[in-house]
């Protein structure tokens, strides 16, 4: 993956969390992710299409997601509340959209509306030929990761842009 895709997501999560929640984010060392299952139990997913294709997943433990949602919305809620998914989706949308603005330049890139999945050991299908980079993030609300599997369309002629998901059997 082009390293130019990584830095915008780091800057974006810091910008979104500090602007919307006054919550500093400490960034860990990025690593390549081979396993298909998402890192944690709550996933906010955005697909990218156009000149850049692939998917971005914000993966949270439920406890971290609940604390973040409470801070973001001003209301404590359980993960089965529809507003919980809405809030996680909006955070994912802002982080991805903000990052896209930093790397897109003259490229035409469209982001999908966010999807949110809650459940243990779920997987988010990624195009096989796009490597996934995980960026660990630490906050006072707990840890989370950004899983980035995107690349230039010219480098991924067969890559499907849409992000899909499968529930555990």
């Amino acid at each position, binding site marked *: 993956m082009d390293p130019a895709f990584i830095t915008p997501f780091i800057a974006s999560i810091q*910008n979104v969390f500090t*602007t*919307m929640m006054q919550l500093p984010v400490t960034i860990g060392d990025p690593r390549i992710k081979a396993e298909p299952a998402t890192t944690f139990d709550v996933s906010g997913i955005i697909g990218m299409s156009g000149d850049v294709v692939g998917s971005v997943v914000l993966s949270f433990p439920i406890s971290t997601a609940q604390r973040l949602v409470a801070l973001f919305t001003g209301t404590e809620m359980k993960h089965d509340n529809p507003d919980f998914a*809405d*809030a996680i989706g*909006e955070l994912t*949308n802002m982080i991805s*959209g903000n990052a896209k*603005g930093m790397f897109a330049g003259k490229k035409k890139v469209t982001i999908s*509306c966010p999807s949110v999945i809650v459940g243990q050991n779920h997987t988010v299908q990624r195009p096989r030929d796009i490597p996934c980079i995980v960026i660990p993030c630490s906050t006072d609300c707990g840890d989370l990761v950004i899983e980035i599997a995107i690349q230039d369309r010219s480098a991924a002629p067969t890559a499907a842009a849409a992000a899909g998901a499968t529930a555990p059997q």
Partner: protein
Amino acid sequence: MKIMLIDDSKTMRNIQRSVLAQLGHTTIEEACDGQDALSKVGAFQPELILVDWNMPNMNGLEFVKAFRQSNKTTPLIMVTTESEKARVIEAIKAGVNNYVIKPFTPDLLSQRINETLSRLAKAA
């Protein structure tokens, strides 16, 4: 003042509603996408509209273009993550009066609302 909030995220509509309440605006109608908004503008007659870009069914840009065919004067503020220069220009050409990039602070949103309204008041 009657204000319409168009965003597919209820969380975002609530955040904007809270900023508007601090500015003293409480007559608010909400819509979850462009189609929903078009079905409500006739009855509600908004005096200011805040509209997101990326929404299902009908996105914000499509809404602005459709709305401007029959209404050239009601101020529209695009509130979106779309920050590329080409996108901002595209929105302004379609008829948006001001632009706020998410994430935003309550102060920034207040400032953009106030400057939009005062600019239009001076022009009237």
